[in-house]
Structures are given as structure tokens and as C-alpha cells.
């Protein structure tokens, strides 16, 4: 069963901490994405990557960075966590030309 795995379901971090969210997919997809999901705002794209070591900014990249050293792994980094980054973070992957995303189960991050 193909899937996208996010390393943590729930995280609680303190303001100012550096936070790493990990995502691994086993489908050999070229494209990987990080979204955040907030009530009333829907899914907003933070960053995406279409190949190893390649990254593109999405709609809300400020305060975030990403790393893609291997095809199967895409990491989201919060350089200095702030309370307004409390959210549900969703990782997704997609085959180029494919018809839809495969999502992970999400990481609910709370910054206190």
C-alpha cells in the first residue's frame, strides 16, 4: 500500500525553537509539497519540490525553509517557531502528470 508518512502526528514546541517536520513517500514521486491547513483558510502551499535539491516557494514561505536531499524525503523547517505557526501541516506527493495528490496524515503543531 503506497503512502506518505509524516514523522509526528502531534508536536508541541516552544517559541523560538527550531522545528523539523519530516515526510517520506514510497511511491517514487518526483513532486513533494508542504501545506498548512487552518480553519476558514483552507490549504495554503508553503513550499514544494519537483526534484532532489530543487525547491520552489509557495504562497506563504515566510518563516519556513525546506530540504530535499533524497527523492523520498522532504523536510519542512521552522527556523524560529512562533505562535502564529500553530497549525496542521500536511505533506503530499504527486507523480509528474499524475491526477492527484497523496497526502500524509498530517502533523498538528502547537507552538507555545
Amino acid at each position, binding site marked *: 500500500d503506497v503512502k506518505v508518512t509524516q514523522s509526528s502526528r502531534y508536536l508541541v514546541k516552544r517559541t523560538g525553537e527550531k522545528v523539523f517536520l519530516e515526510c517520506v513517500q514510497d511511491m517514487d514521486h518526483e513532486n513533494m509539497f508542504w501545506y498548512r491547513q487552518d480553519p476558514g483558510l483552507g490549504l495554503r502551499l508553503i513550499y514544494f519540490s519537483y526534484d532532489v535539491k530543487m525547491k520552489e516557494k509557495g504562497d506563504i514561505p515566510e518563516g519556513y525553509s525546506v530540504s530535499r536531499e533524497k527523492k523520498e524525503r522532504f523536510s519542512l523547517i521552522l527556523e524560529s517557531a512562533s505562535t502564529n505557526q500553530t497549525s496542521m501541516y500536511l505533506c503530499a506527493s504527486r507523480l509528474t502528470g499524475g491526477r492527484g495528490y*497523496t497526502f500524509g496524515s498530517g502533523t498538528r503543531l502547537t507552538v507555545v
Partner: protein
Amino acid sequence: TQLLEQSPQFLSIQEGENLTVYCNSSSVFSSLQWYRQEPGEGPVLLVTVVTGGEVKKLKRLTFQFGDARKDSSLHITAAQTGDTGLYLCAGDRGTGNQFYFGTGTSLTVIP
């Protein structure tokens, strides 16, 4: 500004009723997907529609892509409690690798 607007935002109905959810845009999409997301989980792809006017059925769910490929609808017949969840539409503008998501419709089916 959302590229895709969904309505209604919230919907609460009795089991057995029918319902329709709408996804509208002023932009043209090469394809459009519908996802369902259950609480605490990631969205799961239900269907992709590609051709203007296309209708796809998935058991009691009927999906339609508008003729101009700017809008879509999801109709559920005889809703069941298992249909409860957040329904999201997402469009592919064909200009890159990302999809654009609607704000979602939260459906609650009451037994």
C-alpha cells in the same frame, strides 16, 4: 483571495437526505479533483475530472465538471454517517506541479 470558492462552508443534514456541494472559480482548470478529509487525517483523493461536462459516479457520489472547466459539483444521494468529513476541491491550472485548493465544505450527517 481564493482561486476556488466552495459552498456551502458548513452543511448538517439527516441521514438519507441528498446534498450538493459546489466549487466555483473564474479561472479555467485542466483538471479538478475532489478529496475527503476525516478529522485528524490527511485528505484522500476521491475523483479527478478532466473533460468539460464530464460526470463521474462513485457509488452514491456524483461529480460533475462544468462545461467551461471553471466549476464543479459533488452530489451525494442518501447521505450516510460515514460521509461525514471535510470535502475539498482542488484545481490544476496546468501551469506547474501544484494544485489550488478550495476552502472546503464541512459535512455532518446526523443519524
